[in-house]
């Protein structure tokens, strides 16, 4: 029988849990929660509104005649529904969340508090600039920090996520080429280890994509790069540190070769957390790089966004940046919103307004809290934590690149699982039963059965040890032939393994009334 850290058995003798079912579908405090559409809330509302002072008869036949089919819940019911649902999620606030390449770090609540100040949260984007000087000043300060930390002269703040930042970078590069009569360049080079967003973005803006090979030690193959760098290449997109968690040692040479053929160097900055405060991408020859504020600068991931992806730009690319941007002048700050005059070379607009202000506020509060000294420590601790995990697990699992240190994430392959009948997926699902979110699996594509672990700097040594102990115990179980523990996992999660094939074969993407259900009656607003 295994014991937990306070010496109690982790499960009942003989594992009574597996065969036990409650009478209601609940699992203790974890409720089986129906959809809002299944609670007979047609006609119900959880808000108290005034009675309209006049009718909408002036709109005639523009008014909808058929009911919408939306249920409502009273406030207590809605609260309980969503709180119950929340309890079915894993979260950073519960345990280490080692999704490689996602930088799941602690989200300070000070940032939430300041973002909600009415002076930021209750501002209209098109309010006169004289009434939003504090907001523009904050954007200007954020820009100053981002430029200083990256050693780049310009930054476009408006992209709304990392992939949107990539789009911004490539559109800037495309505009720069077109301005110089180089619009014929059709090719973007991307390493095989790249995030899927890189080739998707290149294709989205009309480029063809070619892959750069990788060396045995997990870096860009310089010879292959050089062979593919022709005058048809518009840009290379390289992640650094790369998705194997390794710093590209030849990065300066990569930049030099790229520039030699007139192409630009786009750096995917998803892994900036590993080097912030210690290395400036501008010193490496980078022309453009997006910064995921939701990774390095701790704005919350929110179950899949919103993120923010500002893009720092070199002198050569800065004139082509998207509008709008903030300019500091004698009468305070103003916004350049149109592609004319000083913005005549801009490639245009990417978003309706100015970008993710709510994320700017949070990211700035995070930077100001850390300061230049704290941010340097962030990178050091992030790298230290990853190397610690790599060192502790390497005896049992096979590190994909065992020689030399990794950066902020440790990459393992599945060679050590050979002959156990357990796959990377099975192993990951078994981690859930031990209380951890799985690592990133099967990415990067260059490593077989990849397991990419990024702990971040906000994990304590105790939590790292708890995590490593759990993985070592699982590894031992896998090698001991306890395949059932893995094949059926997870056993203890809110749900067992889900049938993803069924979901894709017969997609049910919205709730529909069952044929036997009486359709909701039209509801008058009185």
């Amino acid at each position, binding site marked *: 029988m295994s014991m937990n850290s306070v010496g109690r058995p982790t499960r009942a003798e003989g594992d009574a849990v597996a065969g036990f079912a409650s009478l209601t579908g609940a699992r203790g405090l974890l409720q089986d929660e129906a959809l809002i559409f299944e609670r007979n809330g047609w006609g119900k509302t959880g808000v108290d509104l005034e009675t309209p002072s006049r009718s909408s008869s002036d709109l005639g036949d523009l008014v909808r005649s058929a009911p919408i089919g939306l249920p409502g819940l009273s406030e207590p019911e809605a609260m309980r529904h969503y709180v119950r649902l929340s309890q079915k999620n894993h979260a950073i606030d519960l345990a280490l969340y080692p999704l490689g390449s996602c930088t799941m770090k602690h989200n300070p609540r000070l940032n939430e508090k300041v973002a909600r100040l009415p002076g930021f949260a209750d501002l209209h984007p098109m309010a006169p600039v004289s009434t939003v000087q504090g907001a523009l000043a904050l954007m200007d300060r954020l820009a100053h920090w981002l430029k200083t930390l990256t050693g780049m002269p310009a930054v476009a703040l408006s992209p709304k996520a990392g992939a949107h930042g990539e789009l911004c970078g490539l559109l800037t590069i495309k505009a720069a080429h077109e301005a110089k009569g180089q619009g014929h360049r059709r090719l973007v080079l991307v390493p095989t280890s790249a995030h*899927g967003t890189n080739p998707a973005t290149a294709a989205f803006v009309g480029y063809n994509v070619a892959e750069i090979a990788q060396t045995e030690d997990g870096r860009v193959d310089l010879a292959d790069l050089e062979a593919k760098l022709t005058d048809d290449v518009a840009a290379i997109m390289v992640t650094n540190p790369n998705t194997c968690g390794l710093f590209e040692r030849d990065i300066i040479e990569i930049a030099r070769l790229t520039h030699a053929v007139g192409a630009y160097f786009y750096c995917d900055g998803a892994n900036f957390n590993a080097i912030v405060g210690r290395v400036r991408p501008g010193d490496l020859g980078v022309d453009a790089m997006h910064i995921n504020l939701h990774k390095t600068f701790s704005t919350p991931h929110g179950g899949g966004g919103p993120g923010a992806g500002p893009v720092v730009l070199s002198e050569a690319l800065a004139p082509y940046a998207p509008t709008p941007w903030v300019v500091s002048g004698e009468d305070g700050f103003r916004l350049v919103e149109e592609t004319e005059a000083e913005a005549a070379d801009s490639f245009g607009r990417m978003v309706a307004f100015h970008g993710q202000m709510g994320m700017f506020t949070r990211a700035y509060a995070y930077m100001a809290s850390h300061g230049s000294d704290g941010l340097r420590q962030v990178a050091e601790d992030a790298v230290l934590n990853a190397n610690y995990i790599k060192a502790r697990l390497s005896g049992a699992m096979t590190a994909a690149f065992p020689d030399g240190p990794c950066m902020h994430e440790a990459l393992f392959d599945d060679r050590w699982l050979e002959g156990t009948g357990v796959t990377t997926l099975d192993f990951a699902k078994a981690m859930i039963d031990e209380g951890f979110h799985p690592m990133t699996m099967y990415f990067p594509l260059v490593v077989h059965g990849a397991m990419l672990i990024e702990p971040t700097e906000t994990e304590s040594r105790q939590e790292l040890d708890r995590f490593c102990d759990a993985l070592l115990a699982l590894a031992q179980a896998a090698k001991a032939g306890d395949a059932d523990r893995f094949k059926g996992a997870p056993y203890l999660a809110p749900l067992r393994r889900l049938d993803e094939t069924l979901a894709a074969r017969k997609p049910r*993407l*919205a709730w529909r009334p069952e044929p036997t259900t009486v359709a909701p009656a039209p509801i008058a607003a009185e």
Partner: protein
Amino acid sequence: MRYLPLTPTDRAEMLQVIGAASVDDLFVDVPAAARKAELFDLPRHAGEMEVERELTALAALNRPAGAGPFFCGAGAYRHHVPATVDHIIQRSEFLTSYTPYQPEIAQGTLQVLFEFQSQVAALTGLEVANASLYDGSTACAEAVMMAQRVTRRKGAVLSGGLHPHYAAVTQTIAHAEGMEINRLAVAIDAEDAVIAAIGPDTACVVVQTPNVFGVVSDVTRIAEAAHAAGALMIVVTTEAVSYGLLKSPGEMGADIAVAEGQSIGVGLNFGGPYVGLFACREKLVRQAPGRLCGETVDAEGRRGFVLTLSTREQHIRREKATSNICTNSGLCALAFTIHMTLLGETGLRQLAEVNHARALDLRDALAAVPGVEILTPRFFNEFAIRLPGSAAAMVEALLEDDILAGVPFGRLDPQAGMDDVLLVAATETTTQDHITAFAQALSRRIGQ
């Protein structure tokens, strides 16, 4: 440093386990020329109180919408958001989780997304909706790109009533893909002009209702013309509350509906983060951009939800993906869903009627001001007025009366030659006192 748990002792012991002499040894792969030994020229770390003080001082330099009379709209609307919404979205399990890649421990987020998709599909009158996009403008651009994939045609016709920023964002993206965008001349009542612009290479027609001037139109005839020519009908809405009162895009023949969902649950936030709504006909779903949540069962046959049809997406399909999108607007979608659940159909309908009634009150007050011309015949909660002079100058002047009077159309589109046009909006947050103050101040200033 309060966010960093490691102690100096931890660090020393961990380095021993690793077998490194110092943390610098872990950065050995960085070229020596790029290693910064000294700290950057930025302030040092600061306590929570100091940071809060700095940001509070910056916030105090701004004039919040709620501080007095306020009539701005043009794609971002001030609505009351129930306190419950902000409480729930700050639950750790929603706030600090990520995209639900592991469905067994993300059913909270996934069920919310399924409810969100179901609500958006119902509101737009279409069969399916995705799990959100960044905002309404990028959703509009994505819809146009999708129409190109579906029809294999290169042309798109944008109505002159489309929000100029939406048109600009769409042009930016479509230009890069080599599409031909035909943005028709800006006009208050521009919708019917799109019919004549449809040609054999038209992939889609993009019409906004209510349009940027607030004009509400029935686009059924336009949809019929688009379909007759083999093109898709895309209907754009920047004010999601209008769904509560007006005919849905689906009812009028839309193939794709996109909207800015900010009005429900999200707040103004100086333009972001917002939440893009995207719905379409079921037969088109495999060409749709973004995440989709679908229903399935687990190994014990219990209902559950997963991200699905991911073979459209960048992490599987790479350069052949339908979009490059990865992170979307999850937490804003949650806020939307909670607010919509609190409203229910009854509440949404009533909210929409209150908005409309308040805008009629505003119209009556402004129509009585000598020199003001009401330009929008039929509107929801926003309309355009013509002033005797520059709208931007009048907005500046009214700031002296502490009135945020609206959005000058010339700021959205300086080329349109409509510098005397002001867009004004009223919502349930607008009071009769504010309307009276606005009309009186406007009357006084026009008279000057």
